[in-house]
């Protein structure tokens, strides 16, 4: 099977599971509400402080909710004893990776938009003016995060200590995404164009491409039994 066809099948399968159970999105959304509230109390009552920290907090919220989302990517396969069947799929296993990345991006972006809206409402950020630029940053940052997260989800789903190992492996590796994306988010929220700091934009694009390719190439070795 062609890897794009395979990716399409995986995407359709997982979105159908999601549409029927709504387990992933519901939990992600509720989780993100909680995180926004925790941030609010952790930062005290100073509005200025929250605004200054908003870009970094946003990405921290994405990564924390994303951690659960990523862990789930392959846990649902494991819980249903489907890892075996996935291994047996004829054709390029990299397609499974690509499909899972697409699913992860869909779920993450939906959650991120909700978090963004909550930040706007609870922290009085003016989002409308910067929405287009914010979406660009969200997509670029999310692809990088999900590219790594999906690969490590596949590894850790097969471990006993999976709850600890996923953040342990993933957090140090997403630092570049966190840095670049929160810089760009800061720019967008300040009302400036992303081209004010083009090196961060280029950085994210190259990061995404490199780790998508590396994930695609190494994924079959992770799935081997």
């Amino acid at each position, binding site marked *: 099977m062609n890897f794009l066809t395979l990716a399409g099948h995986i995407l359709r399968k997982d979105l159908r599971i999601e549409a029927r159970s709504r387990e992933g999105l519901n939990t992600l959304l509720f989780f993100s509400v909680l995180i926004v509230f925790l941030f609010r109390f952790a930062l005290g009552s100073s509005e200025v402080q929250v605004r200054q920290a908003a870009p970094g907090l946003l990405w921290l919220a994405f990564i924390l909710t994303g951690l659960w989302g990523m862990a789930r990517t392959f846990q649902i396969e494991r819980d249903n004893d489907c890892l075996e069947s996935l291994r047996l799929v004829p054709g390029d296993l990299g397609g499974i990776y690509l499909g899972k990345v697409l699913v992860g991006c869909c779920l993450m972006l939906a959650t991120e938009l909700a978090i963004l809206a909550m930040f706007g409402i609870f922290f009085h950020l003016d989002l409308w003016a910067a929405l287009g630029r914010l979406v660009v940053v969200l997509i670029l940052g999310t692809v990088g995060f999900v590219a790594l997260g999906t*690969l490590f989800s596949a*590894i850790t789903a*097969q471990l006993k200590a999976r709850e600890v*190992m996923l953040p342990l492996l993933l957090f140090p590796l997403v*630092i570049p995404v966190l840095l670049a994306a929160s810089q760009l988010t800061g720019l967008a929220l300040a009302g400036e164009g992303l081209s004010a700091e083009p090196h961060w934009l280029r950085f994210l694009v190259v990061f995404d491409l*490199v780790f998508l390719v*590396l994930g695609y190439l*190494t994924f079959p070795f992770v799935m081997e039994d």
Partner: protein
Amino acid sequence: MNRLAGLLGLGAGVLMVLGLWTGLINAPPDAVQGEVQRIMYVHVPSILAAYVAFTVVLFASVAFLLRGTRGWDRLAHASAEVGVVFTAITLFTGAIWGKPTWGVWWTWDARLTGTAVLFLVYVGYLMLRSAVDDRERAGRYAAVVGIVGFFNIIFTHMAVKWFRTLHQPSTLQRGTIDAALVFPLYVNLIAFLVLYAYFLVRRVRLAALDEAVEARALEG
């Protein structure tokens, strides 16, 4: 293999003593920083040895995924372990050097942050290995982390560099260092690389013995 290890061990010992002598006694103190600058003779060689170690992890990981021979996996594992030790030495000596010259043990400077992340990535690599019981699978998972982690570190170093940096630029790249200080640095550099090779050979052998013992135990 044992002869090689012996030779490397001897070489490392002699070179380390020579390095200590040139660095601590023979070389003059730094014009600005004084005696404390001598820590450079440990600080710089150990991070360079760590870079070499993680590059070896990268190549050994690729080779293991392509070939599947145990030897490559043992090499990657051993090199990662030794690399983590050298990175820890760099972080510690850096903190000791930072306190008298900058006034703080730690600062969120680009090079410090990058090195700390490097440390975390490969500690994660080692923890992943110990989290998998099956040796073959541990090797494959670790190899993936060894490859992805290496490229990731390049991005991390780039990203953190775009923040303001406090660390002095690389001693060797800058070329402003006096010859009297360069010589001991090179001696120590070679000493650390030989020491790395010695640790590596020993660690690979230990891993091979470990596997042999396990195989023997399984036979009953």
